[in-house]
Structure formats: C-alpha cells, structure tokens
C-alpha cells in the first residue's frame, strides 16, 4: 500500500504542511490537537490520501459518492470520535475490492447455489464481494430514487439513517430493482462489517487514518509487547498506538 511516506522525515513534514486539507483538519480538531503541534503521526496521516481528492481504484465516482455517504451514516463524526470519512474508510473499502478478498478468491464459488438455503448455512450467493458491492450500491440507489427521488448520497441525514435501518432489517426488496438474489440485509451486513474493519484495522490498509479510531478507544495497535503490564491491573495503558508502518500516534492529552 502507499500510505507510508517514502520521503525523508523533513521532506515529509514540508509535504504535510502543503497537504493539510479538510479531512486532516477535521481529524486534528476532533482529537483536540492544535495545528502547530502536529507531529510525526500526523505527518504519516498526511501521507494518506485526502478522501475528497482520492481517485478510486474500483468504484466509479457515483458509486464512491454513495459508498462514502453510507460509511458516513454508519460511523458519523461526533464529539466522541472522528467518524468513517475523516479516517478514510471509503478508501479502505475501495482498496479491499482489489484484493483476493474482494475478488472472492478464497470463497467457494462453484454452483449450484441456493440463496434461500437459510441463515444457518451462511453466505450462499454466487457473487464475489466486488460484484456484491456493485449490485448492492446500484440497487440501494435505485430504491432511494424510487422512494425519495434522489440517490442515497443526496438524501438528508435523517433519510439516510432511515434507509440504512430499512436495509438492515431486510425491508428493502432488491428484487424490485433488478436484483432477485441479493437481499438488502446481506448487503448491509457486509457494509457494516467492512466499515467497522476500515475504521479499526491498521492504517496500512487505507482506513483508520492517523490511528484515530485506536486513539479513541485506547487500543495500542501493533505495540505487541506487554510482559511488564500483565500484572498491572485496572490501570489505563498510558501509551498511544503504533502501526505496522512504525508510526506512532500521541494521546490527545499528552504533550508531545
């Protein structure tokens, strides 16, 4: 992946100053870090693409707009955390489409398929993940236009929440929008799982920008060495996370 800057630190810092855009600003503001105090971790975050100028590798522009709106609705930014957009979750999902997971290379895809076999049998559709997303996003948008006269991305915040609620409860009949096999609930379950993954996985995969979701919950990431901490009971762990690229993120209330 390309999120770790390959430039020397000094250059990285200069690049960071040039790159600070709205998404970075939102992250930093959410974390309560004054701009003047941005450190190496933010420099790493700045090496990650800005969602607004990101060119998707799989989704087209309209799909990316719908996907981003869905991610934003699933994990909105608020006083507690940065949300899916500021942490590049749509970038994560787009990049996942071009992996063996996205292409369904590990899944057993031979027929016959019985999509009505029942919940006990798990996933039984003939679609790999990228096909499922393409179909699901199109059907969701078609349903949204039918219901509200606008695609999902152009719905009000309230309408978006309502729409995802309906999807999650299996109340949206995708068959009426050209998808006889894919059901809204299955699509929603993948959206939610992948959004949660993008929020909480290592930044190397394109989401969790700046390790902001890890900072929020107090997860130290890839530190992976706690021999002396095992017997220190009921004490919050004081150090912020590190990622697989070797970057670290400061705690919001610790002066770097």
């Amino acid at each position, binding site marked *: 992946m390309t999120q770790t800057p390959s430039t020397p630190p000094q250059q990285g810092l200069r690049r960071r100053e040039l790159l600070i855009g709205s998404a970075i600003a939102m992250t930093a503001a959410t974390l309560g870090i004054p701009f003047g105090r941005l450190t190496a971790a933010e420099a790493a975050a700045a090496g990650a693409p800005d969602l607004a100028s990101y060119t998707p590798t799989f989704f087209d522009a309209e799909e990316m707009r719908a996907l981003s709106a869905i991610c934003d609705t699933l994990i*909105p930014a*608020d006083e507690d955390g940065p949300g899916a957009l500021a942490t590049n979750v749509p970038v994560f999902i787009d990049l996942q489409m071009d992996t063996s997971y996205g292409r369904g290379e590990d899944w057993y895809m031979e027929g016959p398929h019985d999509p009505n076999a029942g919940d006990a049998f*798990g996933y039984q559709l003939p679609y790999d993940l990228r096909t499922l997303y393409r179909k699901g996003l199109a059907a969701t948008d078609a349903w949204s236009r039918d219901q509200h006269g606008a695609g999902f991305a152009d719905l009000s915040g309230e309408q978006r929440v309502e729409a995802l609620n309906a999807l999650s409860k299996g109340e949206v009949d995708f068959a009426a929008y050209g998808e006889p096999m894919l059901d809204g609930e299955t699509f929603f379950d993948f959206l939610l799982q992948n959004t949660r993954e993008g929020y909480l996985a290592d930044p190397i995969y394109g989401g969790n920008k700046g390790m902001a979701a890890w900072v929020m*919950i107090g997860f130290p990431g890839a530190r992976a060495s706690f021999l002396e901490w095992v017997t220190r009971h009921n004490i919050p762990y004081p150090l912020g996370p590190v990622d*697989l690229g070797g970057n670290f993120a400061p705690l919001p209330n610790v002066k770097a």
Partner: protein
Amino acid sequence: MNITNEPVDAVVVGLGWTGAIMAIELAKAGLRVRALERGPDRPNAEFAYPKPADELAYAHRHKIMQSPRQAGFTVRRTRDETAQPMRVLGKFRLGDGVGGSGLHWTAVQIRPTPTDLKLKTFVDEHYAPGALDEELQIQNYPVSWDEIEPHMDFFDRVTGTSGEDGKDPFEGPRTSPYPLPALKDTLNCAMFRGQAEKMGYHPFSNPSAAVSQAYTNPYGQQIAPCNYCGYCSFYACLNYSKASPQTTILDTLNRMPNYDYLTGANVTKVELHPDGKTARGVTYVDNDGNEVFQPADIVILASFSLNNVRLMLNSKIGQQYDPLTGEGTVGRNYAYQLGSGYTMFFKDKEFNPFVAAGPTGVMFNDFGPGNFDSSQLGFVGGAKVHSSQATGNPISMAMMPGSPKWGPGFNKALKDSYGHSMAVKMTISNVSTRGNYLDLDPTYKDPYGMPMLRMTYDYPQNDLRLAEFLNGKVKEIVDALGPDMVVDGTLTTKSRMNYTAGYSSTHNVGGAVMGDDPRTSAVNRYLQSWDVHNVFVPSGSAFPQNFQANPTALIGALSYWCAQAIKDRYLQNPGPLV
C-alpha cells in the same frame, strides 16, 4: 504430467502437529521419511515483529487458514436437509501450510481426565439403563490412562507447557510436574479466580503452550518467554513463544538427512494394492498440476481430522458409515465442542484486553464428568468453566448490550465498550450420536475434482441440557462479580448449529475413531487402519467423542503413542497390530 517419485519408507500426509511428531519420531528410528504438505512453507521473516500484529489479515482475511475454495466442506444439520458448501470461512478454521493449525492455535494445552477416556464405562457404572438419550454412541478410548499419560507428559515437555501444579484436584495422575510455571493473571483472571475460590470451586491457570519462561525442549529447540503481545489465536507467534511445529520440532527435524518435505503437494488419494489390504503410496497434485505418485511402505495420514476422513473415503479405506443401519465405520461419531457463556461489562474497570497470550485465563474442572453428580439429570458430559483473555483486537470487540451497532452514538459505544468487558465461558463436551456423521458430498467437488466432505451435524439435546444446567451455575459466578451489564451468549435446548461467519472453535474430532471393535471403529488402539494395515491415522479423527478439554494435548500424545507402536512393533513385523 504423471510422475513417480523415488520410494520412501514412510510418507507423512500433512505437516501440522501430528505430521511433525510422526516424521521426527520415525526419522529418529532411521526410516527414510518424506512429508507432503499442500500449503506453503512460510519463512520466519514473515512472522517477524510487527508483521503478525495485523488483525485484518490474520483474524478476518484468514491469512494462514485453509480457504473454502481450496479445501472446503459442505454442511447440514440433519439428513433431510440438502448440504450447502461452507462458502466463506467462519465457524471453524483449519490451518494452511507447514505447521497446520498448530501455527495459529490458541495453545491451551489442557489434558482430558481419566474419566473422559473411559466415558462408556462411566455411563455404565453411574446411569440407570435408559437414563440417557437412545441416540448416543459413546465409546471408550481404547487406551488406559497409564498407557497414554507418559506421552502427554512428553508432549508437554516438547511444548514447554506452563501451568499450576497441584491446583486441579480432578486431573489425572501426572508423571512429572508442568515443565514451566503458569502464565500471569490478567485482571479478569484474578477476578474470576477469587470468585470461583470463594464459591468452593478449584480454579487454576489455563495450561499454556505459550511459554512463561525461556525454555529448551527435549529436541533442543529454544522457546522465548511469552510477552503477552495480544496476537495469538489466529496468528503466528511473533516472539518464538507459542509452541508450534516450527518452534518446537521442525528446526531439528529439517536437519536430519533421512527426512525431507515437499510443499504445494496436495494428496488426493492413498493408492492401495489390488488386494486392498495394504497401501502402496499416495498420489498428490503439485502446484504445476502434475499428478505425482509417491511410493511408500507406510502411509501416515496426519492432516486435519476432517481431511483424514475425506482421504480415507476418497481412497476407499474402510467402509462408509451409514446412520440408518449403523454399519460402516468411516465417518462415524463425528463430534465438535459447544461454546456457551456470558460477557460482563464493568464501567469502572480497565481490563487492557490487548495484554494477552492466547491461553491467558483461569479455568476449573468441577463440572467435568464424574466431578459432579449428573446421573439423575438426563445427560452425561461436562464443561471446563473459564475466564480467558485471549485477545483485545478491536474489530471483533464485544459491544455493551443496548448500544447502537452503527450510526449516532456508535463512537461512544465503541469507547465505552472497549477494554471494559470480561467473559466467563463454558467449553462443553460433545457426545457422539447416531445421526452426527461425515460422508462424501454427492454434488460439490474440490479444485482437484474430488468430492468434498459432507458434515451432518447438530447439537445433541444431551449436550444442550447439560448447557442449560451449567448456565445456572455459571450465572451465579457472573452475578457475584457484580457487572454493570451482561450479554447472555449461552446455549439452550432450542439452540441449533449454524455455519455463519462467527468463530466457534476448530475442535472438530471423530469420524475415524479408535476402538477395540472393528465394527464401531475405523482404526485400532494404535491408530492403525483395521482394513489397510500400513495406513496409520493419528489425529483428532480418532476421538470416539469429544470431551471438554482442548484437543491438542491428547492429539500430540496419540501421535507419540502411534509412533512408538510403529517403531517397537510394526517395523519388526508389518501387519495388523491387533
């Protein structure tokens, strides 16, 4: 292209725990041994810090697991259902490549008890006729405690099992103490231990094959002290601390001149001589698509239990079990294990869940079979009750009850939930029944054109009644600990098996069980096929039913037991050992 290799004395199919044990023991006896592993060999560089500290890759993309596309199963609950392929990995996860499931296991190395091994005798002595469900097919393990315990003891010394001596009054007699002291208690361990003791139970640290101290094992391999990195179950160890075939056997084995191994060698069939009484070797397909015949005098089926059963069926070794007539033995007595429990949330406690070895935890065996009186309760079996903190990886974190799964308030729910929960769980034994079995699927095939294994399995009511009984007992502990909130994840008599993506365990056993009677077992007490005497099947497939302990301690011991029988008796006089 068809290729025939130079013959070897023994070919070992699969290079996980059993394959590594069989290969090194037979090589030490002077045999020319070749292991065939269908997955890759991964260099240690792949497991260097911090690479394995990657939840997405290991726990969600199954980086070191067998994929359903490569080696899948079809599943159904009962015979009247049409089995569907398990298309996406989830419920159980077999290892892929050198090390097998021994690379990603949780490394809890608890032994069964002497009662577990003689459960049929226990039932006959303690239950009135007709007191248990008619469908049960409980059988004794055809080895005595005194025969098998020395092999569990040696396997403990191979893995450096770290545990608490003398704390479990229900354990069977031991040849020697644990090689190393137990892992340290995390907060959940201390809370559970204290409460369990207060209520008269006998808690002790989970016996751990992630070692507590620097250790050199009998093969001369050195293991480093576990650093509680938090990436253990589903992961390869980044610290040379978790016992695996790599960290405890293979570095030694690989230096023996009479041993070699091939990767990318997918064994599709054991080839028999025309009389069907002996095998002449195995056929595998290599990564270039060549079909290769490997001649061998002895064939060791050491792949995962389910794959051993499939290989036997696809090779026509033994007769397929028929649940209607009860005839046939291969596929008979497939069993699993049941997981049940409670997750508790404490607003004011910091559990630091990322501070964890896979086996970090405390358990007690007071509800093992024979340790409490269940003769009037309509079920047989037992559970280990434990509080373990195996990982703190956030994508799979437990969420407080009532919290939103997404949308407004989700960030707060993540913050409030993470690091504030602990679980008390039951790992419940699984009786074998007439209707739970394995056979070949009539429809679905693997990439080599071989039929997939079909699993017909549902939770027996016997075990669900046991679960309901235990729920009440464990709830007393939960309530006494005084959590702010509790998620009830227990099984009831209405629970059914499902194959959704959530993980349960990879403790799939049975299907080629060991026994004294060739009408009810596929292999004899030395893990030798009753039908083809130079085929040995040392694996979890030999378990006549499953107990409440984790299976690896006994699987390792059975492998040593089998290797000893081959070395001491079979080589001198090849033929049926019983």
